[in-house]
């Protein structure tokens, strides 16, 4: 089998394509190190990590969904739902409240998953419904009000510096990476994303895998909602997670996971989220007006995805 063992030689372009995001992150770090005042301060780096953590968590769930050839537009609304649920149960203590928030996320994911896997709706529309309804529901639950959180245990989740949110996100990334590459569930998900009819005929539990995936995505979004709430020291269902779906999808795609499914890049997703975070930080810290900032972001997204694109042999 020696001839089989010979690894395929990969041209340089392939490396750029696979590792381009990391390069881009490095470039942005370097740029800031030289041109942004106080950038290399510990407190600033910590700020970036803390801010990016919820995006990373949501994006990890999104990466799973996208790997299964789906997409979940409802993540932002699910964050709002989780945020709205927390104060209701905080009287019982932190963990019951967090648990209920995660349950809310799981239920939302179950709805999405069932609509996609059982009813057979197209993911964009199926989750669009919950994008619209979810935040409404959250506001109904919260009576439209923002609620200040005073529970010290919950607030502790939002503090704790690098060992708090970023650690949770990092651990989750490792877990998701393991799940994707090393578990039957993960491999089946990727197979389903790659060719659903074939996976079906190969006897894979397509529906179950897809539902589990959307549930995971919902739970991750809910977790992000909990953490965002802790960080904000308030449950704010009207604002938390706004446009999160776009940030998460951008992170996933910039990280090299194709939207057509069949491939999941976990580390790339983390890097994608970091890239967008650093970019935003750069733009804000250099005081660019909103108009310029948006155009620069657009350009960077295009370039980053272009570099990481899947070339076809010809």
């Amino acid at each position: 089998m020696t001839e089989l063992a010979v690894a395929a030689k990969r041209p340089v372009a392939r490396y750029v394509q696979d590792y381009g995001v990391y390069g881009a992150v490095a470039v942005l770090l370097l740029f800031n190190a030289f041109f942004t005042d106080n950038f290399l301060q510990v407190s600033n780096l910590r700020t970036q990590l803390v801010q990016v953590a919820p995006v990373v968590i949501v994006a990890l769930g999104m990466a799973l969904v996208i790997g299964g050839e789906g997409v979940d537009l409802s993540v932002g609304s699910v964050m709002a739902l989780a945020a709205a649920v927390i104060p209701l149960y905080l009287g019982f203590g932190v963990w019951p409240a967090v648990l209920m928030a995660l349950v809310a996320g799981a239920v939302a994911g179950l709805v999405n998953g069932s609509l996609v896997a059982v009813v057979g709706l197209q993911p964009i529309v199926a989750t669009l419904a919950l994008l619209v309804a979810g935040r409404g529901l959250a506001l109904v639950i919260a009576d439209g009000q923002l609620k200040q959180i005073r529970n010290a245990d919950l607030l502790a989740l939002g503090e704790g510096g690098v060992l708090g949110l970023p650690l949770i996100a990092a651990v989750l990334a490792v877990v998701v990476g393991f799940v994707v590459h090393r578990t039957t569930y993960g491999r089946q998900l990727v197979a389903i994303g790659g060719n659903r009819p074939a996976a079906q005929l190969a006897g894979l539990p397509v529906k179950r895998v897809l539902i589990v995936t959307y549930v995971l995505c919902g739970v991750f979004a809910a977790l992000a909602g909990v953490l965002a709430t802790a960080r904000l020291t308030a449950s704010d269902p009207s604002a938390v997670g706004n446009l999160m779906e776009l940030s998460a999808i951008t992170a996933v795609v910039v990280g090299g996971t194709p939207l057509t499914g069949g491939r999941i890049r976990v580390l790339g997703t983390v890097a994608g989220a970091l890239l967008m975070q650093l970019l935003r930080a750069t733009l804000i810290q250099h005081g660019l007006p909103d108009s310029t900032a948006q155009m620069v972001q657009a350009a960077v997204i295009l370039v980053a995805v272009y570099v990481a694109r899947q070339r076809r042999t010809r």
Partner: protein
Amino acid sequence: MTAVLTTGGRQLPVSRVARSERIAALAQRHGALAVLLLSTLVASLVFDSFATFDNLTGISIQSSFLVVVAVGMTFVIITGGIDLSVGSVFALGGVVAAWASQYGLAPALLAPLLVCGAVGLLNGLVVAYTGLAPFIVTLATLLGARGLLLAITDEGARTFLVPRDAAFLDLGRGTLLGFGYPVWIAVLLCVLGGVLLQRTRYGQGVYAIGGSEDAAALMGLPVARIKVLTYLLSGLLAGFAGALNAARLGSGVTILGVGMELDAIAAVVIGGTLLIGGAGTVSGTLCGVLLLGVIQNVINQIGNLTSSVQSVVSGAFLVVVVVTQSYLSRVRRLR
């Protein structure tokens, strides 16, 4: 032996298969229409003020701009792509048109087409020649177009007004037989869109690319050119809709169009177009937009719902409509 085989090649009862399939196809193509008629009927029975001329013309003019945008989106989705930038482009078109209206009618129409066409062209070129996912490309131009709009309007602080006496205003405000010009324009564009899609080689190419891009390329279709044209068309239509809207509003409002892409996508999908591409119709999209309009109207008719409950209700409506539609089309998929 061969002769035996040839005469032995009796076919399955093709006509029987075809007829039932045609009925199913009808149900799919007109599933949105069926749901639309049904909900209109129910709404007229339940609410007194629903089936009035004023209300119906109201729904039609309110929907007309989304129709124009959604027609472009239909083309894009049939190629298997998506255009998230339409909302921003719609707003951009309106602002540019309002600015240009001080120079007369023609500039007011041409300037937005030029600017928005450029955005569409950019989308098309990038999608066609780099193979990047349309979702992410147009997500970027969604940001970019909005940024451009803010830059033009001094971070949104300036609102360009259409001069009171501009002929451009009539385009948005005039009526014919009780229906506003935008309604007629939207209907006309639907018809043109339908013909373009069904009866031209370009339209067939659009279907082919969505059905199987590889096959389309191997069959010798100019895939890249068709894609560029399609995104260009979507940009032009979104910009034109924005201009039309500016003519109606009398100003280039900067805050328009946020989330419009999702409405357009929802309408297209409700109309029976597959998001994976390869199938869909403009008439279905028209029904989809009207259905969204009716849902909105019904929510207002119910009255007194808080904004949060309104969102919940419209989300639920969306699910019901799409599920119904998908069951209607299921008949076809199972053959």
